[in-house]
């Protein structure tokens, strides 16, 4: 666990001295952040991995928007606040390329990163280097 924490903080310096939580930690690499944001726990989801055949793979960030649209999400115009009866996802981009997805959990956000799941504020994962760039879009769907 300490090693995971140290690794996380080396990738995301904004986490240091922040009140983020490690929610779970396991030793399997059986799903990634996009799968987690869609409540999929048995495979990775990316444009070249388990990608739905009816969604174009070559549109960069738009491909991911279409993925969430096809799962019932709509654009919520960067509104990251908690809204009763809605699920929200936030998608990160780095230099214009898709890089990470988080899902809202109450007033916080949760992300699958490497072996674990952490709870954090959106901006804590932003940054340069190994960090996840910046928020690209936020979408929501009614529960």
């Amino acid at each position, binding site marked *: 666990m300490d090693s995971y924490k140290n690794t996380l903080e080396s990738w995301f310096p904004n986490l240091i001295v922040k009140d983020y939580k490690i929610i779970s930690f396991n030793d399997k*690499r*059986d799903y990634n952040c*996009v799968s987690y944001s869609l409540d999929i726990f048995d495979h990775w989801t990316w*444009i070249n*991995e388990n990608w739905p055949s009816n969604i174009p*793979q070559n549109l960069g960030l738009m491909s991911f928007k279409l993925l969430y649209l096809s799962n019932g999400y709509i654009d919520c115009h960067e509104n990251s606040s908690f809204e009763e009866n809605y699920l929200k996802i936030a998608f990160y981009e780095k230099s214009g390329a898709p890089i*990470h997805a988080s899902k809202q959990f109450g007033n916080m956000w949760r992300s699958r*990163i490497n072996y674990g799941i952490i709870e954090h504020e959106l901006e804590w994962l932003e940054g340069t280097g190994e960090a*996840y760039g910046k928020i690209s879009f936020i979408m929501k769907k009614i529960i």
Partner: protein
Amino acid sequence: MNIVKYYEFVNQGNIDIKSLMDITETTNSPDLEEISKSADYKKVVELGEIALPYLLETVKNESSFWLRALSEITGIKQNTSTQSSKERKDFWKKWSKDNGFV
């Protein structure tokens, strides 16, 4: 790489396969294709057949992380666009049994 060369490799101060795999798996990338292009991933692939039991063990544990490495080492092509990771994992589980890796 055969078993003799592998032990020479380790005895020369190189790390063992499991440690190399652990290092490779320590990534925050969500993209398996990008990960498979990393230098550490390629080092595992370069170990060849000697790495197979370790990679097949991860499939037994339902991980998709090393599926591309298995294809590269064995030369067995799998289509990540048309085959789900479950189908690919099921293939490797059967292949593992058929080829005496269980």
